[in-house]
């Protein structure tokens, strides 16, 4: 049976977590590659719309990560993000989203090891959970390639 490669989007802040990911890479740490990184300047930039949109694009899991509290490159961005995620996550839970598929971390530029470990943890978690079928059911089906017009590959 084909191995399930989950679709995971990772919203990472440029200054800390993304740098941490870089460090994991340059240190040749191994971790599963089953996630797509979307770099943002700061977690404060992350609009909850990104998370909903990611699920609508078929995400099986979403990872959001930034600088530790007090260490934000822009001083206060992650404080706002923390408040925003707290309330938004609560709403997602209330509306029946599977919170196991949503991960939040603070990972600094020095924490390459932590990045690799968290990546491994999350990818394995989503692999075990399987595709997020419950949400995928409401995503409008992808149209099949045209047969009538004689087009298609």
């Amino acid at each position: 049976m084909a191995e399930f490669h989950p679709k995971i989007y990772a919203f990472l802040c440029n200054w800390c977590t993304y740098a941490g990911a870089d460090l994991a890479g340059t240190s040749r740490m191994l971790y599963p590659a089953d996630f797509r990184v979307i770099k943002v300047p700061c977690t404060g930039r992350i609009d909850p719309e990104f998370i909903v949109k990611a699920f609508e694009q078929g995400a099986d899991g979403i990872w959001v990560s930034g600088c530790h509290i007090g260490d934000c490159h822009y001083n206060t961005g992650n404080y706002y993000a923390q408040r925003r995620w707290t309330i938004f996550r609560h709403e997602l839970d209330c509306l029946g989203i599977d919170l196991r598929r949503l991960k939040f971390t603070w990972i600094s530029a020095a924490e390459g090891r932590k990045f690799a470990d968290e990546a491994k943890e999350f990818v394995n978690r989503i692999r075990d959970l399987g595709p997020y079928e419950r949400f995928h059911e409401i995503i409008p089906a992808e149209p099949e390639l045209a047969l009538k017009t004689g087009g298609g590959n």
Partner: protein
Amino acid sequence: MSASNESTTGTATAETTKEVDALRKVARELLESGAVKMVIGYGEGYTQGKVMPIFLTDPEEVNRLIFDKRCVNNLATYLKKPEIRAMGKVAIVVKGCDARAINVLLLENQARRENLVILGMVCEGVGDPAEEKCLSCLVNTPPVYDHLFGEKIPARGWNEETFAKVEELDAMSPEERWEFWRRHFDRCIKCYACRQVCPICTCTRCITDKNQPQWVPTSPHPMGNYHWNLTRAFHLAGRCVSCNECERACPVDIPLSIINLALVKAVHDQYGFIAGMNSEDSPPLATYKEGEEQEFIK
């Protein structure tokens, strides 16, 4: 005779309370003196037995003003209207919940205090039987007013029933919650009555009306409905005053108050904040404090 949405049912109640008499007197004075250009209040509706918002500019019409248990509308929503804002100073009849909405508008610079004469009505609850929201009212005496009609009374306050429906939802599994909302959101027709009636939805261009990019799908399919209702509630987090107009306006009876209350509770539990009690306290999602570490962030 002015044509300002006059009622043609013509069955104004003969008896009034002394509060309504006093209200009419003040409204007349305000209009006659030119202190305000318009009085926004409640009048007999087009439908027999209902009330509707009325917009008086002629002091001779003040006897159309009423206030009773049928006055469920939140008139603060009209303070969003460019036509009303262009009038300059207006007077507006409010219950406690409506006055809370005005506090939020003032806090967010969506209304000017000096352009408002707030006619506060002490209210023991609207609806017969009483609306659910009224059983947990925090503002039976409006929190902001220029004139108060009625004797001040203490607020009912939150009780064990206030968040009962939220707790019911909490007790369900995530799958059950998903199904619960799928069933309700299925009926959504994207009429946006919830958004339009809400006094706090003040964006001149709502996020769902933006298409570069299109964040919220406009289609009334399950995904579009889920996304819209989720976004609407979240954009009101820390701002919603639980007036329940959204739920009342919804033509297909989606229980929006449950989501709103879930967020009201979350904001209160986390940050000790309740929207609209005054117009000074900073909104919780626009501020932060040290020492708020969250367990769910690893």
